[in-house]
């Protein structure tokens, strides 16, 4: 499963380019900002528990993924510029969305090239080395595999497409989950197949998206898990919405919320 990332390949070693610094900000993603405040809070709690003085820089909005992916790349360029400007003073950016992380890492340079602005191109390239998906940051930059969390439930993990194939970080999440006390991790059959969300795909090709969703849900139900966990709330909104519609009784959670459970001073 090797492709996409050229510069920052996952290894067992903590990454040397980035040091743990108090100039670390969460990139919360517009989607979470609007609909999932609890994930933002959970991620902050987990990172602070691991002694990372993470802040949430103000004025951050959207990475531009929805525009870029749907075919409106030119409209994403101002968002790229704003993002780079907003996070320029931070040594590390921790993102709680796998697909937004992939967007910044893989597409920002490409989009910056459109402007012929060399400063922006350099900044985009440099930024791609400073942004990390949440679980990737914990395991690779901090070098931590166990967060000291407690979550006594049967859980199955859906590796979202971007985290699996673009970021190549399947193992980060699995390792962290395995070390959660009380958590029973059960394997999801056919896990690597897309859930059918795909952003605007689920609107433009809704029937195909639903067909994929139904197969994903059937596999989730086979596991007997109480909770489905993933690294992206957008995929989870789609899968969770489906699970609720069929009254499956299985809930969905972002991994940050599971890792925040049972920490000192945290609620679950």
């Amino acid at each position: 499963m090797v492709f996409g990332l050229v510069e920052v390949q996952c290894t067992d070693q903590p990454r040397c380019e980035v040091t743990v610094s108090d100039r670390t900000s969460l990139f919360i993603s517009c989607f979470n900002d609007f609909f999932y405040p609890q994930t933002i809070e959970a991620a902050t709690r987990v990172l602070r528990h691991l002694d990372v003085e993470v802040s949430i820089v103000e004025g951050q909005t959207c990475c531009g993924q929805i525009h870029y992916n749907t075919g409106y790349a030119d409209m994403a360029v101002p968002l790229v510029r704003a993002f780079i400007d907003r996070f320029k003073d931070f040594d590390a950016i921790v993102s709680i969305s796998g697909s937004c992380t992939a967007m910044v890492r893989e597409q920002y340079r490409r989009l910056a090239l459109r402007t012929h602005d060399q400063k922006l191109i350099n900044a985009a390239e440099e930024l791609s080395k400073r942004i990390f998906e949440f679980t990737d940051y914990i395991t690779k930059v901090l070098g931590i595999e166990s967060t000291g969390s407690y979550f006594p439930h049967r859980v199955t993990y859906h590796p979202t497409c971007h985290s699996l194939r673009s970021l190549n970080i399947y193992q980060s999440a699995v390792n962290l989950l395995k070390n959660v006390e009380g958590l029973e991790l059960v394997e999801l059959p056919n896990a690597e197949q897309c859930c059918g969300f795909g952003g605007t795909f689920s609107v433009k090709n809704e029937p195909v998206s639903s067909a994929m969703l139904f197969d994903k849900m059937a596999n989730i139900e086979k596991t007997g898990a109480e909770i489905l966990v993933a690294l992206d709330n957008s995929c989870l909104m789609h899968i969770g919405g489906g699970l609720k519609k069929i009254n499956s009784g299985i809930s969905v959670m972002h991994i940050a919320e599971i890792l925040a459970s049972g920490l000192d001073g945290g609620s679950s």
Partner: protein
Amino acid sequence: MEGQAKGFQGSSRQFLANSQLRSNLRHATSTIRNKRYQVTGEVDDWEYLRERGREIKDYSLAHLDQLLSQLEDSISNKGGKVHFAVNAKQANEIIYSIVQTHQVKELVKVKSLTTDEIELNRFLEDKGIHPLETDLAELIVQLANDKPSHILVPAIHKNRSEIRELFEKTIASGRHLGQTPAEIAEASRLYLREKFLSAKVAISGVNFAVAETGTICVVESEGNGRMCITLPEVLISVMGIEKVIPTMEDLGVMLELLPRSSTGERMNPYTSMWSGLYPDNDGPKEFHLVVLDNGRTKVLRDPSSRATLRCIRCSACLNVCPVYERVGGHAYDSVYPGPIGAILSPQLFGPSRSGTLPWASTLCGACYEVCPVKIDIPSILVHQREQMINKAVAPRGEQVLFRVMAVVLSSPILYGVSKSIIRSMARYPRIVKALAPMVPMASQWVTTREVPDIPSRNWGDDLGRHGEEHG
């Protein structure tokens, strides 16, 4: 957006409803998928091979002018004749004029996508010549008056009993056939043998053409292709300009990549190679190679889509594509279905016929992961989406919506305002749920997915001292 479901949106809906098709596809694609996974996994240097494959194709595409002229020389020196066709019409006319000089009413064909692309069969039928497909799956499709639905397995949408019934009605002339694949295939074997021995003219596609030696290579699994290539007196092969590669050594790399990626076999069963004519031996007495552009030089001109032409038609991307697995090849309405078709068809056939195909993907990346020549299909899909929007394929309303969103998301103030609007909606969850099915973009979404609960508060209320400080 609904009510006017055109293109892929409309056709996919129709094919999704066919549960027999979906079960045939799920079974067939997962079988090939697992075989491919196994045989690529056992090659130590698979990633190196992929990189070599990419290099060879990129080099060839960058030197097409030289390589094609070298190919022409090599073949002419060995008694063959090379014809260049700018478009489908020219290619069809060249082929017809060759066929006409031999005064035949029927000819045999080896499975060839390129001849499907130019709709050669229909052209010849209109002129009173019957081109008989000899590849088993192509024969099934032809007898059923159907269209291929997969690059490599054209009849993947049909199961065994459907094929048995078809053969009983057609080539077995009412005879009752047994249940086993061997018994069913025997009917086609008997039928085709006779045709091979009597045909005077054969038409084939080309998998690779080696410029240095003038060698044409055709790979297949049944041996029917080899009979077409060797038995008739006249052989006409049709290839796109992108099929040329420099040397026999390069062919070696391709022959390692192709069978493992396509059928999940370590080695291809029937690999036929010939360089021009062999006057002192068996084989055709006349050989023509038709080299087709048909929009390919246009693809070559676009640096962001150029890699599309690396494709060696292995169909690994179809077999791993979750969208293809649900809807099948016919939904793409093109001889090139699946992920590769979603990027190739709009470039070859234009926005009016294939304009919705670039959106027929979740961008999950499974296709890129398996591609033996490393075509970054997701990136090209996104680029083609942009191209199609520039050609006015997207609905006007959508374009306006994205422009408004871009303005809102670029302004922290407007962004804050929209967040407040969403927060105020949280106070009326029942109204939100009741209205959701009436919102144009959401109406279909909520038929299978519950509307998410909208939170009434912002993040930070729960972050304690730090949260107040930063939030």
